């Protein structure tokens, strides 16, 4: 009978602790379902927004965060994770939520300025100190003996940007010759020893486990990794041309109406476009879309480079997704896991 004697008090004790912990003030809460590399940014942004909202509305707001691979997070929202706002790596993932659930209208991307992308990024290379393999531009990635780290485009939003950036470079380099572009991207993937599932996983593989000569990644991930692991360990190489990566944000109508949080959720997303929101984005290595209020020092870390958009080159996410990343698409054709 020791079972009853020992476990009931423990159970009661834990229930008490838990009850005490979850009893919170009657503040409004928002759930922001985001992707991996925004953790540090939203931590600071949420605190700033809470302060502004308190001044404006008088009551507090607690923003709860969920982070993960962008596609996985979209899947969770589709399956019923009650996000008030989604801030994901690419518009396609939010399109999927709209198409599969109707939680938000199909034209959600028109509701906020700049294609609903308050901050952008681009795709750059991270190499080891001194750039021992002399990586200067995209064409260096296909050289023999260069080991390239990039995550799996099937699961990672960042990896899809990487893939499209490479393809876009090739199209420009070979004057729109799609066959040459396919050959070029195939050659890159011959140099990829391992496909991580997410951008952050790829960064830790490159930085922590020491695999690979070059990491293709978001500019914000590269800048953060350089900062976290010490500026004397890695160097960032900015290619001649890259893609304008637009992580997009949206309000999820069904859930804000159910939770009664529409006003605060709208202000939250608007605040991303404010000078303070833009400054914080820049501080956390995202390129602000409205640079007026952002100090020049924060902007200095973003080198100028030629950028193309997914709409220009690939006709938007729907087309790009279907052609390259769907089952049986171009990626399935060119990537063979066993070399």
């Amino acid at each position: 009978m020791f079972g009853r004697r020992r476990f009931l008090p423990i159970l009661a004790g834990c229930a008490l602790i838990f009850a005490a912990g979850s009893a919170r003030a009657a503040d409004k809460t928002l759930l922001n379902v985001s992707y991996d590399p925004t953790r540090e940014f939203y931590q600071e942004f949420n605190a700033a927004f809470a302060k502004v909202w308190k001044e404006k509305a008088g009551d507090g707001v607690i923003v709860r965060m969920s982070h993960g691979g962008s596609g996985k997070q979209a899947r969770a929202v589709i399956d019923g994770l009650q996000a008030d706002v989604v801030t994901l790596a690419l518009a396609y993932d939010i399109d999927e939520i709209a198409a599969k659930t109707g939680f938000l209208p199909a034209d959600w991307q028109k509701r906020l300025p700049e294609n609903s992308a308050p901050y952008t990024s681009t795709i750059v290379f991270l190499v080891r100190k001194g750039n021992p393999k002399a990586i200067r531009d995209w064409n260096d990635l296909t050289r023999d003996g260069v080991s390239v780290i990039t995550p799996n485009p099937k699961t990672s939003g960042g990896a899809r940007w990487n893939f499209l950036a490479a393809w876009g470079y090739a199209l420009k380099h070979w004057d729109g010759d799609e066959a040459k572009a396919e050959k070029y991207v195939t050659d890159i993937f011959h140099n990829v020893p391992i496909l991580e599932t997410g951008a952050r996983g790829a960064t830790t593989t490159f930085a922590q486990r020491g695999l690979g000569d070059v990491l293709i990644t978001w500019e914000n991930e590269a800048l953060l990794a350089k900062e976290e692991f010490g500026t004397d360990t890695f160097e960032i190489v900015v290619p001649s041309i890259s893609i304008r990566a637009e992580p997009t944000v949206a309000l999820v109508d069904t859930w804000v109406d159910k939770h009664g949080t529409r006003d605060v959720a709208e202000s939250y997303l608007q605040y991303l476009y404010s000078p303070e929101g833009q400054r914080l984005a820049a501080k956390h290595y995202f390129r602000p879309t409205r640079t007026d209020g952002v100090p020049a020092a924060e902007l200095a870390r973003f080198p100028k480079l030629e950028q193309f958009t997914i709409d220009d080159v690939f006709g938007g996410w729907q087309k790009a997704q279907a052609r390259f990343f769907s089952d049986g698409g171009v990626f399935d054709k060119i990537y063979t896991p066993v070399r």
Partner: protein
Amino acid sequence: MITPAARASRIAIKEPPWLKVVLTLSALLFLLLFVAMPLAAVFVEAFRRGVDMFFQALVEPDALAAIRLTTFVAAIAVPLNMLFGIVASWAIAKFDFAGKSVLITLIDLPFSVSPVVAGLVFVLLFGIHGWFGQWLVDNDIQIIFAVPGIVLATIFVTFPFVARELIPLMEEQGREEEEAAMSLGAGGLQTFFRVTLPNIKWGLLYGVLLCNARAMGEFGAVSVVSGHIRGETNTMPLHVEILYNEYNFVAAFAVASLLAGLALITLVLKKFIEWRSGDTGRGAPL
């Protein structure tokens, strides 16, 4: 007449001493390399920046929430599975009924199903497009991406531990003692508490221990149903992954060291139980 097996074992005993030394050393080396070293690494990493940083990482609100959630989930899952384990193994070992083998197979199911699939099953049932999804939304009940889903997934994966431990034990003990008690006029409950339970207590404790270790350490199934909301639906194993992904290695290993500590305590208790149950024999009073 010497059987081939006996001859083989006699030859084995006559192996030269150097082989014994080599075998023992290689086994030790293997253990050191694959068990002791990784375990030590967890603690070394946890204390890399000093004891202060270690404790700071543990009292950080999100870490505390993760510890609280993990204990809470285990505090529900373990007693429930203990109860279920006793009932199921009692029924299986002491009675004959149709469908007994089906029941035994079902109990083993969570062992053979991958934890990820176990998690997805609950998404299919309780997700918004799942069987009960619309009804749950209409009634404002959140199961997956909330604490109830985590509890359910944990119960599912830890379901067989107690029953699997008790079934062979009870079967081995047979039903004579219970039948004797009954024939002397004891009721069903009385028989259970005064005859059966004292006989199985060490096995039961052992099962509960393993069940608890798994409940607190489960990653896959819980990860699928968690929704990863910080400070709310992250258990300790999930929190470790998050911290690691945030380049917060010291904090990640500090929380991991709690889980490793739990494993060590489980091992010590397990040894203790084996020693006690072997020492006092079955049926000894508590």
